[in-house]
């Protein structure tokens, strides 16, 4: 009898069949497609000496590309926080003509291939484009320079903030706002003291996701950036150009730097989402 109990307690019986085969297949497929190829990158980097590695990841052109990639991604994610919150707010709180279409259209940057977004934004903003022709006489150039990079990254990152903030706004309890009004708060006070704190974790998560996506983005940026060395060359393009010169070691070293940064961001995003869950109490 005690023996029976101990086995039951230690190992809850798995009623459903298929654990071994599904987990086995999952791990095998994950290893073959993701883990082994990613480890190839790490091992390849180990064949470099420290000096080789350092000179590959800290050349002046590479450093300039980090500055552009991180600066433009940060700016774009910031713009997306402001406008993403605005779009999410309008879609959740107000009724207007064409709302459903707008709601569906928010996901366009997810669905539109990045290369198409790239050539289309370039066509719009170039000197003879629909938007560019009005800006050029004013001395504003948005294509073929770092401005273009920011614009492309705003496009790519837009859905992240909207789609993380939207469900939180939908679930927000109106009773809290009513209570605040009855206690004499103005609408602005309610927004800044009641609503904003409840959506802040979602905003931060959206920011981190848009930022992470922007750092790795390639397709939409290369058409609009102009790709001038030291000025408008993003880090993924550095990897490509090193590859095209058969500098596999250099490309690998820069890629490892990017990979480490994306892992760090992934951990940050996971932590932010855990924080958001603990704030809202929802098990999503």
């Amino acid at each position: 009898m005690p023996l029976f109990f101990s086995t039951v307690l230690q190992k809850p019986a798995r009623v459903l069949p298929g654990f071994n085969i599904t987990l086995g297949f999952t791990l095998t497929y994950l290893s073959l497609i993701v883990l082994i190829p990613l480890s190839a990158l790490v091992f390849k980097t180990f064949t470099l000496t420290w000096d080789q590695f350092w000179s590959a990841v800290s050349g002046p052109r590479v450093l300039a590309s980090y500055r552009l990639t991180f600066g433009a991604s940060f700016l774009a994610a910031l713009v997306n926080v402001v406008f993403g919150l605005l779009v999410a707010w309008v879609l959740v709180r107000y009724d207007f003509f064409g709302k459903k279409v707008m709601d569906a259209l928010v996901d366009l940057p997810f669905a539109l291939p990045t290369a198409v977004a790239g050539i289309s934004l370039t066509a719009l903003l170039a000197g003879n484009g629909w938007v560019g022709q009005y800006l050029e006489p004013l001395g504003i150039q948005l294509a073929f320079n770092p401005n273009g990079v920011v614009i492309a990254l705003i496009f790519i990152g837009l859905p992240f903030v909207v789609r993380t903030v939207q469900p939180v706004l939908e679930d927000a309890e109106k009773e809290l706002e009513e209570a605040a009004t009855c206690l004499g708060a103005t609408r602005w006070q309610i927004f800044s003291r009641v609503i904003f704190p409840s959506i802040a974790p979602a905003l931060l998560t959206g920011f981190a996701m848009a930022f992470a996506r922007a750092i790795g983005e390639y397709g939409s940026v290369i058409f609009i950036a102009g790709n001038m060395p030291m000025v408008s060359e993003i880090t993924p393009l550095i990897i490509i150009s090193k590859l095209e010169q058969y500098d596999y070691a250099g490309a690998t070293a820069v890629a490892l730097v990017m990979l480490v940064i994306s892992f760090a961001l992934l951990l940050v995003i996971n932590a932010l989402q855990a924080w958001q869950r603990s704030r809202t109490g929802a098990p999503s």
Partner: protein
Amino acid sequence: MSSSSSTALRRAHAGTTEPAWVKFLLISFALTFMFFFLVLPLAAVFTEALRKGVEAYWASLQEPDAWSAIRLTFITALIAVPLNLVFGISAAWAIAKYEFRGKAFLTTLVDLPFSVSPVVAGLIYVLMLGAQGWFGPWLQAHDIQIIFAVPGIVLATVFVTFPFIARELIPLMQSQGNDEEQAAIVLGATGWQTFWYVTLPNIKWGLIYGVILCNARAMGEFGAVSVVSGHIRGQTNTMPLHVEILYNEYQSVAAFAVASLLALLALVTLVLKSIVEWRHARALKAVAELPPENPHWSFNNALTH
């Protein structure tokens, strides 16, 4: 007395929304932003494609190179999506239906390809399977070409679309629990029957949703595929790569013509996605209005019908 309570009510209501002019301003700002960043780029694709008329548009789509790019894109998606579908179902079954050590870590690993830059995704396959790579000499000795050929394109596409279906299914199956499957097993169903008749109808919409998104990314992937493709016209060019080549050769109309097909694909994706979401929301609402005797069963019923 009654008038003071009604003013309090009105004030409470006014506190939960904005004055009309603020509303109008916010909606105008949001719509202007969306117009410039979403509507205009989409419209520009089709306008540029038709710049020299419908005939030039059709002519550029009937180029043999364009055709082979379209074919390769479909072949790639036809291989990559089913592979990730099988993986998604298998991973969701293992993660959602059982408890085991390292489950949270495994879930994170499944999401990993989303956070890797597409260019890095392509590079890792070059390092592993390219001429200079780990298996390069062996592959060359056996006359197998993967990098700069179709298998490399498929592999890179599988990598970038890896998490789409799994990440839709895992939370969905977790929220549905094991009760129905256990009942089926106790009643004598085999594991396969349980999956086919009990689980699959319950996860149908999540599955379709994942497949739609996975397919859109598989057909539109650019960075990863660009690294492994080698850009051989008529052989290893997918549609997005073909767009790039035409664009760089200043064949604007042809580039935008192929791009317009991809934009159409994106629009179809958005429409399908919205339909799936609306159906799901309607099912949830129907459940909320049902009597509460047996909510779980009616929930799943409503989702499947």
